[in-house]
C-alpha cells in the first residue's frame, strides 16, 4: 500500500521511536507486560503500515459487496438499510409470547426471534416426565400446530421475518411455521426467516441434541433440499459461534469451530447430492459480541474473509452469495453481571457497537437483568433503544466498514484468520468437525478456555467492574419476571383437548409415513408437513424419529 522506499524510511523511524520509548519505561512502566487479548494474541504498543506490509488491498480486503467480503457483504451496508433489530423473546404460553412480540413490533423492532422452552427444543411435549419444571421457562412452550397458530396470531407472516432458535426439531417447527402461513394465505415462497438448525454445536456447546450426529446431519440436508425448492428465501441454517463463545471459547476458537461446522454441513450437503450454489446462498451465521472491542470487530471481518475463501477455493462455489457470511449477532450473555446490573446496559452498548462496526446483518442486544432472570419489558426496551441509538444518533452507520484500514484492526483481522485456519486444519486432520466433537477435542478446548478465563477473574488479572473491583454493597432487585407455573397446566389442558378433537387415524397414518421416510432415503420434510397439518404433536413426531434414529448420549470430557 505504501512505496517500498517509504517503508524502509518508516522502518528506521519506527525503530528509533521504539528505542526512545523503551528507554523511558524504567521511569514510566506500562500497566502490564505483555498485553494480550482473550485469544492470546499479543497486542503491540503501536501498529503502523509496517505491520501490513504483506497485505494486498484487493485480495485481502476488496470492496464491500465483493469477494472476499472482508469489508462487508453489501455494497452500501447501513447507508442503504440498518441491520434487522431482532430481540430474542418468548416465554410461558403462546398467548403470552404473542403479546410480547406485538409489544416489540410496536416499539420499532423489525424482525421476530422466537425462544422456545427446553422441552420444545428437545422434542418433548409439555406432559412428558422430563418436561417437569421446565415448561415455558426459557421460552415458549409449543406442543402442536395449535400453539404456533396462537403464537403468530395477528402477525402477518408475509411482512415480518422470523428467526427460530430451534435445532434438533427444526424440521418440525419450520413445518408448523409454513402451515400457519398457509392458513394466513401466505405462500411458502414468500416466507423470510431463519431456523438455527445447527446441530453440531449442540453436541459441543449448547446441549439440546436429540438424535446422534449422522441422522441429525441427514435431517439438516433434507431441510436444505426442501427449502431450496419450496422456501427459497428461508435461511436454512444459522451456523452458530454464539453458544461456542458462551460456553467459554476464545474469539479465535469461536471463528474456527463455527467455520469448521460450516464445512461439515457443506460436505454433508454435497454428499447428499446438492449443488454448492443451490444451498450455499441460504447458509447464514450467528456470532457473539464479547467484551474486547477491537478483537470482536476484527473477528467478524476475519470470519467473512475466511468463509469466502473456503467456499470459493475449497468447495468451488461460483455464486458470490454462496461466499458471503451473512450473520446475526447477540451480545455476550456470559459477560453480564448479577452485581450492579445497570452497568450491563453499558457493556451491551459497547458490544453492540462492535457488531455494527463488524458489519452484522441483524442484532440482539441483551437486557440488563439477564444475569438474574428473564428480561422485563422495561429492560428489553432499553436494550432495543441501545440499537436504535447506535443506528440513528452516533454517525457510525454513514460509511462502510469505518475501521477498515486501521493498522491495528487489519493486523488483528489477519491474526485471527491465521490462527483460526490453524484450528481448521487440525480439525480437518481429525476427520472433520463431527469427528473432532466425537473425540471431545472441541469440548475440551472450550472447557479449558472457560477455566482459564475464570482463573484470570479470580486472580484479578481480568477486571470485571462491580464484580472483582469497584464493588458496592447492594440489594438484589426484587420483582423479577417469573413464569407462572400454571403454564404447564394450561399446556396439558390444550394437549388433552387437541387429542380429543383431531383425527387419530390421520395422525397415525402420517406418522407411519414419516417412519418409512426416516428408515429410507426420502426427504423427511413432506411427511413432517403432513403430520403437522394433522395436528400430530411435536413429541409424537420426534418420538417417531427417535424410534428410527435412536438418541445421542453426551461424551464425558473429564475422563
Amino acid at each position, binding site marked *: 500500500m505504501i512505496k517500498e522506499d517509504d517503508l524502509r524510511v518508516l522502518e528506521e523511524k519506527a525503530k528509533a521511536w521504539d528505542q526512545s520509548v523503551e528507554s523511558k519505561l524504567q521511569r514510566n512502566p506500562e500497566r502490564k507486560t505483555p498485553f494480550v487479548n482473550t485469544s492470546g494474541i499479543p497486542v503491540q504498543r503501536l501498529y503502523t503500515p509496517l505491520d501490513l506490509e504483506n497485505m494486498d488491498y484487493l485480495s485481502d480486503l476488496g470492496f464491500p459487496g465483493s469477494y472476499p467480503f472482508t469489508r462487508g457483504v453489501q455494497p452500501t451496508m447501513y447507508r442503504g438499510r440498518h441491520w434487522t433489530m431482532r430481540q430474542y423473546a418468548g416465554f410461558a404460553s403462546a398467548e403470552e409470547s404473542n403479546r410480547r412480540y406485538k409489544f416489540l413490533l410496536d416499539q420499532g423492532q423489525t424482525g421476530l426471534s422466537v425462544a422456545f422452552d*427446553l*422441552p420444545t*427444543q*428437545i422434542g*418433548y411435549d409439555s406432559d412428558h*416426565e*422430563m*418436561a*417437569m*419444571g*421446565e415448561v415455558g*421457562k*426459557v421460552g415458549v412452550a409449543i406442543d402442536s400446530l395449535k400453539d404456533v397458530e396462537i403464537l403468530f396470531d395477528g402477525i402477518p407472516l408475509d411482512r415480518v421475518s422470523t428467526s427460530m432458535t430451534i435445532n434438533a426439531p427444526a424440521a418440525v417447527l419450520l413445518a408448523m411455521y409454513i402451515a400457519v402461513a398457509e392458513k394466513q394465505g401466505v405462500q411458502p415462497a414468500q416466507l423470510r426467516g431463519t431456523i438455527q438448525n445447527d446441530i453440531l454445536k*449442540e453436541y459441543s456447546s*449448547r*446441549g*439440546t441434541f436429540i438424535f446422534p450426529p449422522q441422522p441429525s446431519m441427514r435431517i439438516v440436508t433434507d431441510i436444505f433440499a426442501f427449502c431450496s425448492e419450496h422456501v427459497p428465501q428461508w435461511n436454512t441454517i444459522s451456523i452458530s459461534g454464539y453458544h461456542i463463545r*458462551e*460456553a*467459554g471459547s476464545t474469539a479465535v476458537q469461536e471463528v474456527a469451530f463455527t467455520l469448521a461446522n460450516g464445512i461439515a454441513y457443506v460436505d454433508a450437503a454435497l454428499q447428499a447430492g446438492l449443488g454448492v450454489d443451490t444451498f450455499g446462498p441460504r447458509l447464514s451465521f450467528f456470532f457473539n459480541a464479547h467484551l474486547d472491542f477491537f478483537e470482536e470487530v476484527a473477528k467478524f471481518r476475519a470470519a467473512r474473509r475466511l468463509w469466502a475463501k473456503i467456499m470459493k477455493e475449497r468447495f468451488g462455489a461460483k455464486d458470490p452469495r454462496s461466499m458471503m457470511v451473512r450473520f446475526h449477532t447477540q451480545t455476550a450473555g*456470559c459477560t453480564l*453481571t*448479577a*452485581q450492579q446490573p445497570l452497568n450491563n446496559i453499558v457493556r451491551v452498548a459497547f458490544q453492540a457497537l462492535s457488531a455494527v462496526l463488524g458489519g452484522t446483518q441483524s442484532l440482539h442486544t441483551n437486557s440488563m437483568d439477564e*444475569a*438474574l*432472570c*428473564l428480561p422485563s419489558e422495561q429492560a428489553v426496551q432499553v436494550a432495543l433503544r441501545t440499537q436504535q441509538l447506535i443506528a440513528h444518533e452516533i454517525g457510525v452507520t454513514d460509511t462502510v466498514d469505518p475501521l477498515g484500514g486501521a493498522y491495528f484492526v487489519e493486523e488483528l483481522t489477519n491474526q485471527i484468520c491465521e490462527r483460526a485456519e490453524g484450528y481448521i486444519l487440525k480439525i480437518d486432520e481429525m476427520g472433520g468437525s463431527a469427528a473432532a466433537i466425537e473425540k471431545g477435542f472441541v469440548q475440551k478446548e472450550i*472447557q479449558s478456555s*472457560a*477455566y482459564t478465563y*475464570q482463573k484470570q477473574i*479470580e486472580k484479578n488479572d481480568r477486571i*470485571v467492574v462491580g*464484580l472483582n473491583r469497584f464493588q458496592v454493597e447492594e440489594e*438484589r432487585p*426484587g420483582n*423479577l419476571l*417469573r*413464569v407462572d*407455573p400454571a403454564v404447564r397446566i394450561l399446556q396439558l389442558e390444550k394437549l388433552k383437548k387437541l387429542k380429543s378433537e383431531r383425527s387419530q387415524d390421520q395422525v397415525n397414518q402420517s406418522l407411519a409415513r414419516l417412519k418409512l421416510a426416516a428408515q429410507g432415503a426420502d426427504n423427511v420434510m413432506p411427511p413432517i408437513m403432513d403430520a403437522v397439518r394433522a395436528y400430530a404433536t411435536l413429541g409424537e413426531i420426534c418420538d417417531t424419529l427417535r424410534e428410527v434414529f435412536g438418541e445421542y*448420549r*453426551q461424551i*464425558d*470430557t*473429564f475422563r
Partner: protein
Amino acid sequence: MNTGRKIRVLAAKPGLDGHDRGIKVVANALMDAGMEVIYTGLRQTPRQVVEAALQEDVDVIALSILSGAHDYLFPKVMELLKEKKVEDILVIGGGIIPDEDIPALKACGIANVFGPGTRTEEIVRYIRDHVKR
C-alpha cells in the same frame, strides 16, 4: 469431618438445561483443590442424580441449573435422598437462581446456593467446612 480420603463430589445437571460452562468450571476448580469429581453430564432426572450419588459414594452433590427449573428439580432431589434415608451428603446448588427462591431451597435441605460471580475458591472453602463425613 473428612480424614484421609479425598472429598468426592458429584457435579450434576438435572433437567433439560444445556448450560454446562459453570458446572465444568466448578468441577475443574474442585479437582485442582484436590477433590475427586464425577460429572453426570447433561439431562439427568433427579432419580438418576441420586442413584449416581449413591453408586459413587460421594460426600457432596453440586447441582447446577440455569433454566429456572430449580424450583422443581432441587426439592425433588432432596425428596429422593430422604426417601433413601441419606442424610450425610452435603447438597449445594448453583445457577441463575433468584434470591427470593433461596429460602425455600434451603428449607428443603439445599445447604447453600451460589449465584453468578461466585469465586470458585469460595465453593471449595464451603465444601471443606461443611462436608458431613
